[in-house]
């Protein structure tokens, strides 16, 4: 009997093909033959783009070739594009081939404000009008002057079904999706919030999805919602808790104070600690048990928060590139489409994690972006469901050259100083802010390339640090084909997700040069002694995802955090096979250690709201739980794990408990 990497039975013939493909790939990579031109030169590739001698090679890279090459291909050459023989989840077959880089990168419009809401928002939930909210707004009770019940900035947002193309390649039909509508039409990703510290706002999230009937369902998605503002220092009633959800015809008013952490506790005199200022947040559906399906169907978007330093104006503050012209949010998502009908498909019966073989940026498959030869700030967000990425900047004409760029933020926060990197790794729900300087690439074509080798929902194929040497061998992988998998694929052999077409027309750039080592914020001290150190063991028991051997239960708070106290949380993952991106609501954390060693990689040095918990790892995190009261979750943000109970509810109360292993 023969199995593929997902443990599914396959025919002997198929198994042989898979082995050949893997072997061929290894041989070609070992020979340094990774670029298309190399293969062409070697006679391994015909003008039509088909592999001659090396039949069965994984076609991932060939789905993402330069359009100038694609254009030369005869009809039918398409058969080699976009397929992905090994990396297809569950029982799915590979998506139909699509031509890459046909569509410009969609830039989400800024969320439209409204002058008033009807009925007017109320301090207590307006249940008579159909509001489903757990409690009164906390902010106006704490400080009615700073936080009026009806703040000056209001949004009226509907969750709605709509149809859209995800590529202009007509191989794929128009898709039925769910998105956010601010009055200008539903879209996915939703419109981008431009929010400001000191300017509280209120979003009315109205569920206008079609009621659940057979006729309306496209095969996945639960039309009851709760919208979480991910990474916000938000009061619990407005957080978008997974256990508070509502169906069509109901709404929830969510109060976003846009206030710095510590405003009502350890930094009351300065109305919060500016060193904890947030920049890049996102919003997404969080409906318990159905988050993966609902976000896959489109319910996600960006929330960019500005202040007197991170102004979005290159002539003020930190002089970062201008928002939104040169400061561009990029929302990454991988998807699968039915091989015959081209319909967007979600694997409902997967417990481990779902990988797609089509890469979407801002809702389009493999788009392109015309850029000027200057600095851009990009806010990268991995919306999963289960894929990790390691992004490199690739020039296919010279794959041997590395093209460094600047890391300036991890998750929601700017880091103290820019760090020059060759790549950035992000897992589901994580964000990184980077600055790419295109001035050296005038007239050239570059790619944002994911070179992380991931074969299934377990996480990256080989667990190495983010500075892993190329072709480093794996130790953690299991399965038939996974032995000796490289952690990082060769340049040009990964997934080319976004194409940059750099203009050759010179332009001005008054944004800060990261090479001058500008200072952003300072990291807050982590010396304060914890009131309690809690341990969380992320595990799998007979296929059931668990935290400390227990499972998600919407009716139980597992522990009580004391308001305005310091805690340390030890996250442990002793399973040996799985990487869990662990997310904690309300407060960010700083990573004190991994396996008792202080973190070294740049992505671990800043403030975080998601920490990747690698196999056989213990990560010790530092928290201050401040200002707000109420309920929040801790959960794995591989949303398939999350939906299968790898989540726990806790709450902040005035008198906390001392449960060490909740």
């Amino acid at each position: 009997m023969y199995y593929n990497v997902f443990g599914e039975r396959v025919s002997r013939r198929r198994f042989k093909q898979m082995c050949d493909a893997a072997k061929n790939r290894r041989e070609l990579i070992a020979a340094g033959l990774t670029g298309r031109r190399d293969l062409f030169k070697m006679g391994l590739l015909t003008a039509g783009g088909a592999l001659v001698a090396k039949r069965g090679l994984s076609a991932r890279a060939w789905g993402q070739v330069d359009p100038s090459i694609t254009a030369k291909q005869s009809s039918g050459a398409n058969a080699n594009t976009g397929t992905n023989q090994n990396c297809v989840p569950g029982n799915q077959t590979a998506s139909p081939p699509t031509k890459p880089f046909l569509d410009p990168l969609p830039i989400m419009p800024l969320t439209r404000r409204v002058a008033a809401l009807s009925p007017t928002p109320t301090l207590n939930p307006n249940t008579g009008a159909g509001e489903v909210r757990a409690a009164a707004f906390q902010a106006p009770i704490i400080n009615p002057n700073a936080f009026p019940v009806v703040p000056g900035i209001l949004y009226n947002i509907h969750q709605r079904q709509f149809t859209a193309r995800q590529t202009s390649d007509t191989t794929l039909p128009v898709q039925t999706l769910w998105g956010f509508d601010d009055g200008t039409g539903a879209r996915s990703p939703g419109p981008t919030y431009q929010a400001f510290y000191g300017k509280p706002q209120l979003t009315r999230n109205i569920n206008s999805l079609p009621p659940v009937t057979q006729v309306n369902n496209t095969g996945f998605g639960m039309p009851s919602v709760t919208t979480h503002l991910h990474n916000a220092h938000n009061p619990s009633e407005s957080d978008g808790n997974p256990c508070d959800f509502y169906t069509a015809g109901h709404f929830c008013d969510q109060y976003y104070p846009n206030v710095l952490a510590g405003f009502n506790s350890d930094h009351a005199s300065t109305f919060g600690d500016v060193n904890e200022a947030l920049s890049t947040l996102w919003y997404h559906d969080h409906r318990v048990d159905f988050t993966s399906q609902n976000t896959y169907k489109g319910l996600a978007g960006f929330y960019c928060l500005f202040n007197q330093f991170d102004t979005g104006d290159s002539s003020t503050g930190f002089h970062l590139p201008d928002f939104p012209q040169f400061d561009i949010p990029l929302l990454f998502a991988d998807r699968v489409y039915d091989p015959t009908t081209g319909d967007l498909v979600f694997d409902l019966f997967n417990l481990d994690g779902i990988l797609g073989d089509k890469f979407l940026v801002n809702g389009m498959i493999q788009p392109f972006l015309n850029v000027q030869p200057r600095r851009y700030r990009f806010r990268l967000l991995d919306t999963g469901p289960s894929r990790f990425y390691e992004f490199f900047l690739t020039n296919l004409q010279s794959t041997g050259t590395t093209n460094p760029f600047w890391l300036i933020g991890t998750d929601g926060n700017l880091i103290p100083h820019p760090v020059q990197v060759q790549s950035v790794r992000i897992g589901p729900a994580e964000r990184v802010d980077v600055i790419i300087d295109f001035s050296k690439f005038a007239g050239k074509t570059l790619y944002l390339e994911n070179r992380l080798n991931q074969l299934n929902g377990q996480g990256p194929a080989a667990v190495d640090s983010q500075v892993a040497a190329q072709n480093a061998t794996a130790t953690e992988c299991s399965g038939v084909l996974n032995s000796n998998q490289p952690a990082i694929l060769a340049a040009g052999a990964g997934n080319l997700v976004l194409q940059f077409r750099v203009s050759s027309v010179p332009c001005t750039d008054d944004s800060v040069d990261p090479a001058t080592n500008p200072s952003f914020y300072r990291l807050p001290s982590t010396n304060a002694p914890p009131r309690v150190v809690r341990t969380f063991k992320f595990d799998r028991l007979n296929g059931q995802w668990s935290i400390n051997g227990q499972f998600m239960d919407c009716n139980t708070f597992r522990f009580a955090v004391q308001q305005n106290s310091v805690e340390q949380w030890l996250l442990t993952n002793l399973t040996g096979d799985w990487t869990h991106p662990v997310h904690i609501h309300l407060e960010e954390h700083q990573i004190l250690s991994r396996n008792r060693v202080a973190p070294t990689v740049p992505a671990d040095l800043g403030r975080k709201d998601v920490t990747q918990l690698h196999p056989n790892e213990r990560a010790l995190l530092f928290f201050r739980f401040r200002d707000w009261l109420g309920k929040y979750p801790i959960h794995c943000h591989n949303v398939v794990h999350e939906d299968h109970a790898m989540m726990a509810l806790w709450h902040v109360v005035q008198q906390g408990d001392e449960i060490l292993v909740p």
Partner: protein
Amino acid sequence: MPEVSRRKLLGWTALAPLAGAAAFTAGGAAVEAAEQAAEAQRPTTSERARQRIQHQHLPNVPLLTHEGKQVRFYDDLIKGKIVTLNFFYTRCDEICPGVTANLAQVQKLLGADVGSKLFMYSFSLKPEEDDVATIRKYRSLFHAGPGWTFLTGKPADMEQIRRGIGFQYPDPAIDRDKTQHIGNVRYGNEPLMLWAACPGLANASYLAESISWMLRPETNRIQKS
């Protein structure tokens, strides 16, 4: 595949070449008419989705109930129904007794809905050991009420169901070890294409609540702090 859908699918496939031929020979109106006719025959996105789920995940294999009745997995147990699905084997002394006892609690909590609106199914993971009499005895040990059916069948068919509903490990070595078998409980509403899963060892009242969302998908929920 349901009869109606098959007819529709065939109709659409048959018409597609005609639409193409019309493009060369006739004017725009004829093309449009042919396209419209083709479109009308084409299964809707929802119909296609339901078929896909059935084909990939819900095989119509024959099974035997604890009463010895022969049934088909998709046609008789799943199609048009709200269901829970889990796996057990009678000699399992690790996770199965806990999950089965938990499900007995869940059945009590769901009350009269079980057997009328909702059907619970437990499938043997070791059909070679678990014949009809064995699973009937096992079922009675847990005082399972009406509406909760225990099933066995040919090993290959049981395996097809198990893989269909995704109760497998990515590592084949672990997957073969039945003591580590997946202890989750799938819950779903087949016609509405709502599917999710809970750990079989989760709190029984919360398990019952989650399953009840399939009966009443229009539920709003608030967790008081």
